[in-house]
């Protein structure tokens, strides 16, 4: 049963899942002003792209995509540590996580 269920899942389902993840992340990034939430949203966009890559890899029976995702995840982990560190620093400066507090560069 599970197999048939799996069989009925086509490439489009996976791509749709990836796209939904990506769009949710994107909307979150644009609408939220909390730095940590915005950061989490970018992570979500990442995962959307990763799902698409894995799906394509499986579909074409080519391992390159999956290998690439492993690498991306590794680097994303490192990047997450760095980004959170930055967020902490920014918070210390202004005692707020509001992204609007950092808009001095406006023209």
């Amino acid at each position: 049963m599970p197999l048939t269920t799996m069989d009925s899942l086509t490439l489009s389902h996976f791509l749709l899942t990836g796209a939904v993840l990506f769009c949710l992340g994107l909307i979150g990034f644009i609408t939220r002003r909390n730095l940590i939430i915005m950061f989490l949203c970018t992570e979500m966009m990442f995962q959307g792209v990763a799902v698409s890559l894995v799906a394509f890899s499986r579909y074409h029976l080519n391992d390159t995509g999956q290998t690439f995702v492993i690498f991306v995840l590794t680097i994303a982990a490192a990047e997450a540590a760095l980004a959170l560190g930055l967020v902490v620093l920014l918070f210390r400066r202004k005692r707020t996580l509001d992204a609007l507090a950092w808009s001095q560069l406006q023209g």
Partner: protein
Amino acid sequence: MSIELIKLIPWIPLLGAALCGVCCMKPAWRKAAGPISALSIFIPFLITCGVYSAASGLTGAEKVQTVYSWIGVGGFQVNMGYFVDRLTMVMLFVVTGIGSLIATYAMGYMKGERGYARFFMGVSLFIFAMTTLVMADNLVLLYLGWEGVGLCSYLLIGYYYEKPEAVAAAKKAFIVNRIGDLGFALGIFLTYKTYGSVSLAEVTTEAAKRLTEGFDPTAADLWIPFLLMLGAFGKSAQIPLYVWLPDAMAGPTPVSALVHAATMVTAGVYMIARLIPVFQLSPAALPTVATIGGVTALLSGTIALCQYDLKKVFAYSTVSQLGYMFLGVGALSTFGGVFHLFTHAFFKALLFLTAGSVMHALAGQLDLRAMSGLRHKMPVTCWLMFVGCLALAGFPLTAGFFSKDTILAAAMTQGTGPHGSTLFLFLALMGLFTAFLTAFYTFRLWFRVFMGPEHFEMGDEHHGDDHGDAHGHGHDDHGHSGGHAHEPHEMPWWPMNAPLAALAIGAVLAGLVFGGWMERSIEGSTAKPVAVAHVESHAAAAPAYQIITVENAAEGHGTEAGAEHAAADSHDDEHHREHTIHIVMMFVSSIIALVGIALAAYFHWLNRPLTDKIATKFAAVVEVLYNKYYVDEFYDMVIVKPLRGFGHLFYLFDQFIINGLVMTVGHIPRLAGWVVRPTQSGKMQGYGLGMVLGVAVVALLVFRWAF
């Protein structure tokens, strides 16, 4: 002593200047600057004495002592080299000898000044530039020294930079000198173009060759002397560029003595004497020099009559004496010009420094009307200045008497006899009248200051109170109590009156002792006027002779032997005539000097009320003379104001046209920025949205194209 040592002479004062500069850094080191500077001038003097015999023996190419190659561009080669002949040695004696005496005096005079080290740095630097000027073996190096002394003059006049008049005087001196120096620079360019060299030895040799060969002067030959002359008139304060020198008295008195009386201002005379063959090539050049000199001597002599400022009197007197030197050089007597330069250095330095002592004693008081009968208060200064005045007035057997007489006799020789020129006769008479004026104004000053009833008003410079260092000086040296109740006091012997005594000895004896030496020195240098065939030399000297020249030449062509004989005869006659004129002039000028002194004694010592009465009667004349013929006002109206007007016009052009254009160009990016600036909101969400929309648009386009 080895002749090589002479190369060190300019560099020792430069080192001294650097050390004085170091002394500026810490107040505790300042005191060292005076001795360092004096020593850095005195050592070159010792070197000058030491190498004198070796230097006078040099011949031909040995005279050029090259230190290193300075500028080499293609065929144009300028060396940092020194031309050592006997004229150089004379000038070195004056610059380093008088310079070390004045520096020693200044050690006392400037004591306690805040800028003590800065002052001595200027003095040492000046001596570096001045020795470079007189030792240069080429015109470019000479120009370097020339500008160097100008710079030091500017720095030293502006020494009291808090005083607006000192700053204005410094700027005036610098700017007026620029006019002259422009002429000088152009003269050097034209010299290089004409003679193909800037080396003094080559230029003078070539000019002398052209003279003796009866070379027909080209336009360049005629113009070079006039351009060089302009430089000399600027530096040596002659009409029309003399106006800076009287104002330059705003500097400290030792500077007036060293830079503006004894050495720098004589650079013009030195330059013309050095290049005399070049000047001889142009028939009108030397008469012009003589005329300017004679007229300047007379005019500034009359101005000196009615000045009340002690230093101004001597300043105008300096201008007047420089006029004499130019008259001498212009009358082809470079000996007379340089001799007067030499003696003048002694007595005018002495006069300025004694005036400085009076000023020092009276706390900066310089007004003749505010002092009288100081002989008991300052006996030494009184008699030292008396000696200086005698020499300046040309009292028989003093230094000024011999040199002035040489000049007047030379002018008279040119002005009388078969080839006599009325111009020179007139100039000689003018010179005699100026000699009378000189004697009168000199002793007017001396009698006013030292004779008559004792009376004085102190000036407002409390040199004992204002600055801490000077306080001790007042007590130690003269022991008068407290900072109040200032009385005029005599200067201490060391370091002030002793150098003055040396100068006084020079002022008395320099003429008598050094006359023959000086004549031989000039004979053995490039300053010796080129003796062309007799008749031609006159032709070269003055245009007025030219008609006679033609006549004589026509006669001479008759029989050659007869002509030669006649020439030899006339040479003997000429010599005899010169001698007679010399003797006559000696008597005449002695009488004139004595009359001048006697009249000054009557009017300014014995019968002052009468003088005041006469002065009130001729108030208009006195007014004009007191205001220096309104020359400054005239220059201001004719030159300075129109130039300022032009400057304002150019300023407006610059502001609106040039600046407007540039600003317009600058406004374009600013405008563009103003248009797109609102898109930069500084909000991350905005950028994010922009990016998403951008990607969406691109994706849409790609999608449309792809399918």
